[in-house]
């Protein structure tokens, strides 16, 4: 596949290169922010599984350089034009109202936020970014907690302190972690949930009450169990899909708002969540079981929400489906569509080359040996 063929098939891949992002994922975070105002009143952030670092770039440019990114960053002008021509927008929502709402939600930030702190962690090295502390660590490893605490608060001393709670907590923890998928679906979902729990464990140590937590999730088997577990710690839990995330992928983002640790809860690295029974104990303690009929955001779009009669008799204990929210407005580029490139389109090189896969050496060796691994050997 040629380079520009990927530019055509993946508008966000092309945009990322044009706008200097290290990965197309930057748009996922920007679109999540557009919907949830993630960065409102935020100065201290932890970015987990951050390599190659496009989310950290967003943090750095928004929080430190005070840049603003709106929909113009990912708007498809032609789509906008065609939408008005085809009356896609006016037929349903009033455009004035739309833009007004948009303005309202754009809170006014002070020129420069004071005391910004951004700590980014990944297994892979992250090239330096202005104002961002980058650490190379495995987020599932217990040693990462003290490492992070020390980065957030240089006076923290893991030798003496048994406290695993940040003294100066953060406002937002984000995690875009994903394993190398094997293709064995339930194993991949399990490994992904372990990354999510690892991120949650870290968040529980460093997040201040009222803080937010955003993490990648695979919407597969038993995802409703995960949703219910996250709901133990946060007032609001939504599952969001930015338009820059492919519809064909199981990926989505869990957006948890207003951190409310259960009474008496203390994050502990000896007893991390995700394995064992600690979480289900917490769930049992929860006062009111969560009901499925939380009003969904899209309730005002003229579609009648049906009160479902469930005759199936299936057991929904400990299961809950977080409300779904699509983000990135309609004029955003569609990550599933193919686009025509300008006749003089030049395919740009990626901002950062992708990190070398572990099988790199195998590929090199193969090339040296002219295609096969060593000499062919007679069977039998």
């Amino acid at each position, binding site marked *: 596949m040629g380079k520009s063929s990927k530019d*055509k098939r993946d508008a966000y891949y092309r945009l990322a290169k044009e706008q200097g992002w290290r990965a197309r994922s930057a748009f996922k975070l920007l679109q999540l922010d557009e919907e949830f105002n993630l960065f409102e009143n935020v100065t201290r952030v932890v970015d987990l599984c951050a390599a190659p670092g496009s989310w950290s770039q967003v943090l750095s440019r928004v929080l430190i350089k005070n840049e603003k990114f709106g929909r113009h960053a990912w708007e498809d002008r032609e789509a906008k034009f065609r939408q008005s021509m085809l009356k896609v927008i006016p037929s349903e929502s009033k455009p004035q109202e739309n833009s007004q709402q948009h303005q309202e939600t754009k809170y006014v930030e002070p020129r420069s936020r004071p005391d910004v702190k951004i700590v980014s962690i990944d297994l892979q090295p992250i090239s330096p970014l202005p104002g961002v502390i980058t650490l190379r660590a495995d987020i599932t490893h217990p040693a990462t907690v*003290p490492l992070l605490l020390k980065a957030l608060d240089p006076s923290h001393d893991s030798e003496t302190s048994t406290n695993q709670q940040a003294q100066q907590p953060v406002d937002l923890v984000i995690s875009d972690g994903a394993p190398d998928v094997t293709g064995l679906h*339930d194993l991949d979902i399990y490994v992904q949930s372990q990354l999510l729990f690892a991120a949650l464990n870290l968040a529980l140590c460093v997040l201040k009450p009222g803080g937010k937590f955003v993490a990648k999730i695979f919407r597969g088997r038993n995802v409703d169990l995960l949703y219910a577990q996250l709901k133990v710690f946060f007032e609001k839990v939504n599952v969001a899909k930015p338009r820059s995330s492919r519809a064909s992928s199981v990926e989505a983002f869990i957006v948890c708002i207003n951190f409310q640790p259960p009474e008496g809860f203390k994050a502990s690295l000896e007893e991390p969540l995700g*394995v064992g029974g600690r979480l289900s104990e917490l769930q049992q303690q929860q006062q009111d079981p969560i009901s499925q009929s939380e009003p969904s955001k899209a309730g005002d779009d003229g579609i009648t929400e049906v009160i479902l009669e469930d005759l199936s008799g299936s057991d929904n204990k400990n*299961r809950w489906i977080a409300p779904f929210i699509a983000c990135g407005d309609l004029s955003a580029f569609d990550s599933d569509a193919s686009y025509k490139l300008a006749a003089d389109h030049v395919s740009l090189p990626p901002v950062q080359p992708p990190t070398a896969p572990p099988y790199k050496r195998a590929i090199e060796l193969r090339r040296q040996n002219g295609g096969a691994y060593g000499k062919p*050997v007679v069977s039998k």
Partner: protein
Amino acid sequence: MAQTSPPHPQTQLQHNFVLSPITALEFYLAGPSSSYLLAGEDTWLKIYDVATSHLVNQLRVFRSQPIHGIHAWKSEDGTSTTEGAFLIWGGQSVMVLSPSLVKSLIQGTALPELPTEFQVPDWIYDGILFSSNGEVQGALVTAHNEIVTLTLSSNGNLFQLGPVVSPSRPILYSANLTFLGNGTILVAGGTVFGEIIVWKFHLDSSPPPQWEVLYVFTGHEGSVFGVTISPEIEVAPGSKIRLLGSCSDDRTIRIWDITDRQLAVTQNGGEIDSKTLGEARETGFGGNSEVKEENKNDSTRGVAVAMGHLSRIWHVKFGEYTPGLEGPINVYSFGEDTTRQRWELSLDLAGSQGPKGALKHCTTDSCHSGKNIWSAAVSNREGQASFIATGGADGKIVISGGNPTPGLDGGYEEFDLSLAFDDVLEQIQRNSETPSMDPLPKGNAKHAFQKYAFLSDSRVITTTSPGRIFAAGIQETPKWKEIQLPDEVVADLRSYNVMKSVAMDTVVLGSSAGNIYLLQHGKSIRLVGKLSGKIQDVLPLVGAGVQDWQAVITVLGDDRAYILSYNALTDEATIGGLTLSLPEHYIATAAAQVGSTIILGSRVGVVTLYPPSEDNTDTIPPGYSCRDPKTKDAITAIVPLPGSSSDFLTTCRDGKYRIYSLGKENCAFTLYHEISPPMGMIEGAWFTSTEKPELILHGFKGKQFIHYNDTTSTVLASIECGGAHRSFDVISPRTNPNAFRLIFTKSSHLRFYSQPSASLRTLKEGGHGREIRAVACSATFKYIATAAEDTIIRIWTYSPTRPGIKCLATLEKHSSGIQSLQWLGDDCLISSAGSEELFVWRITQIDSHYETLAVKCEAVWNFCTKDKDLRIMSFDTSNVSSGGVNHELAIALSNSTVHTYSYNPKSGEFEFGSEARYTGACPMQLRYMPNGEDIMVAYTDGRLAIWTRPLYEPPPQAEMKLANKAPLGMGLLVKLHQSSIKSLDAVSPRGGRWIIATGGDDNALIITELGLDDMGKYKVGGRYRVSSAHGAAVTGLRIVRNEEDLIEVVTVSNGQRIKLWRAEPGRDGRGMRISLQDNKYSGIADAGDVEVISSGKVMVGGVGLEVWDFNPLK
């Protein structure tokens, strides 16, 4: 809709059939002669008899968790009659099947109650049962390197889980357990970061549990996906070693020495070193997070490394070895590339650094389609050859090895010989009784083998450059003799000759002088005729007769071919009674007789008919001649279809075989079937003479010679031969293609290969090796087509009895993942894919004893853009407006456009109609409205549009055609989902209404009512949403019931639930009531489609396929 009708009973979903990845395999050697293979397919345990391939029994073990591992345990001290117990796990679930349950499973008697499914706090990677202190116990190792012990009750049921113990808790990608005796378990775990931790756990120690880390191995450069502990291997009397095998993302296989050389077991384990764990430090790749000082030198215990496989390696296993290490140790690896590779590990024990060795690559067998071998098992029983079994993502189980089963093989011996010319000469001189010919001198470098022919199963013959003929009878090994020839024949055959086997014990030879000889076993060679020039070829006339055979003889530069006929009664062979006049420059390469018509095939792919001459002339002129436009390669064989007097098959060097049918009066033929089996050049074909004939092909694929059963899609033999273009001959018993002999020349040696049975055997048939994206059923439920990411389409029939579904054909022509499928009636299928591919397939049932579906690609949509990089997401057809002659075709492309065409099935041509361009959003689903003109399209932005004829008047003089070309107008646009509409179905108008059901990426199910307003324009009646219909995207949806006052919808989702919904009018006649009738676990991950396949049955396709019944609750 009447309110008073009696209430409908609730509808229920019932699981009927599943074909899904085989995620666990284990051998259970019940007795000296009874071996079983235990397989995990989704939640099911399936037990196969290894000898007969029969499914002995099956049991649904877990409620909603696929099985990931099985451990069969049999008491060592017990007699061979006591049954063992099975430990089964998957995810966090675990179950023990007690000896009495195992016994009833194997014997097929009524099953006692299913034991309890226990839940472990974490994902399980391995488990074992063992007896310790006279009690049966068990242990599991989890994804965090933890051991959970199991206590069994006296009747062998799992009773209680023990505490969780671990020396450290990195995330693992693999783990393996072995019981060492003395209450000790050896644990090996492979981490995400390429480390391997080997530790010991002491069971019987009083709490706190005791453990001891033995080794931490570093060296792998990627996640360790497989670890395996060898049994203790006796290397010399009294001296034993134990090895560990590992495989990784880095494409290497490594062998480590884990022999415990400490005499006394230190019982020093104990507490987690909380200081080391609590310290702030960087971890991750290159961090060697778990390596402590005392383990720094462990990696010197690496014994051998080898690189193999094209992608990730999932498993490594130890196979058979000779005690005392007289031979190598067999090691097997299994990968994402669907291959199984055999390695030989040779060890050098002399060094001071412990054993060192080398892994030598031996064989690569491709066992499965698509991607991934998910499970593998190697049986290890001393003194017996190992069985090796693999289970794929394709749901297939392949087995090999074991000691040959008498009766199953075809009576051929097993050998693979490579003989120099002088080796054969020496044997001849040793074996000869009274040579009347001068012995050939040895050491002549110019002497070479020329042509080969099998006279029978046990006799082969070769011509040589000195003009002499050698023959070998095969008893155990070939015994070479020389055939006595007159001097003038030797001179005539010297340097050039052709030789073909034409009948049992009979070959025909031709020389450059134009002489034709007949050589029959036990008789002297005889000259049967002389033609005008150098004999080019002798082509047996396939299908002409067995006793009285015929052959077509071609002569260089002659415009005629001659027929050699043999009369068995008179034992006379005559040439030239009949000749065939050849088209210009025609070089015939294959010949057959179908009915009374002779058919020739040429070197450039032309097939020519010679209908019987009417006026009894001796020379028949060529009749109809035709070449497939896509080929210019030689026809290598023509074979009449068994039991048919009009159908024949041709094989071609272009890698395809084709089936044609002779038309009326044999004056033409038509192509029905065109298929590319997995080989590059097909050299020959034949049908087995079994009750149900099977098609056997042979040919070349790269450097391999392939012997292939096309009916079962099985490679029966794959022999490294150096590539095409060489002399060879093959033979198999007509009733057993698994036995096979091949003789050929390789680097001036004669290679002679013989196998009693195929090296690989399919124990269970599979399906697609990648995710199914579309399921479509033909008009009368006759055929089901499935299409997948693996670019393959399969056509199946379903029967309610075992085995449930049967694959009739596989269609391989697409080059990228298939998006959509649709039938026109029962005999035409349309498929669309990425890379702008849309194909129309014609399906015919062949009238022959050979049961197969004939399939050919009848038309290719060819309005592609320059780069051919758009995906055809969806399409639909309608024949309303054309009165049924042409088909209207509408296709949805990933660049936000919809195109319409008129398709003419007669000419196979498409004519462009018009276009509709949306905002840029990608279309996902497309349907014609019942008027056959308007098109409903669902997009990634959650909207549904109806495109209609443009509403402007064409200028009076303009032709209809021109008006046609105007872009479509938007008749309706309605917002339904928040994001992508992933599934859609609609039912026809009732009183001018339509009901559309859609499933979205937003987890919602929406029912939309559509009608027409007074002006005849589309209008939305109501939209009704179930917001969180599934926990994940609703990827498949089908309206399965459509009645006056209700519809029922089946939905499937990435969340692996299948749900059945009922929508009916609201209580007061307004609005809509929606109820969830049933909600079940589905074994199909990444579901892509659901389709009704007969009344009351739906099929779900995704990672595998499932059949569900839906019926009123009784």
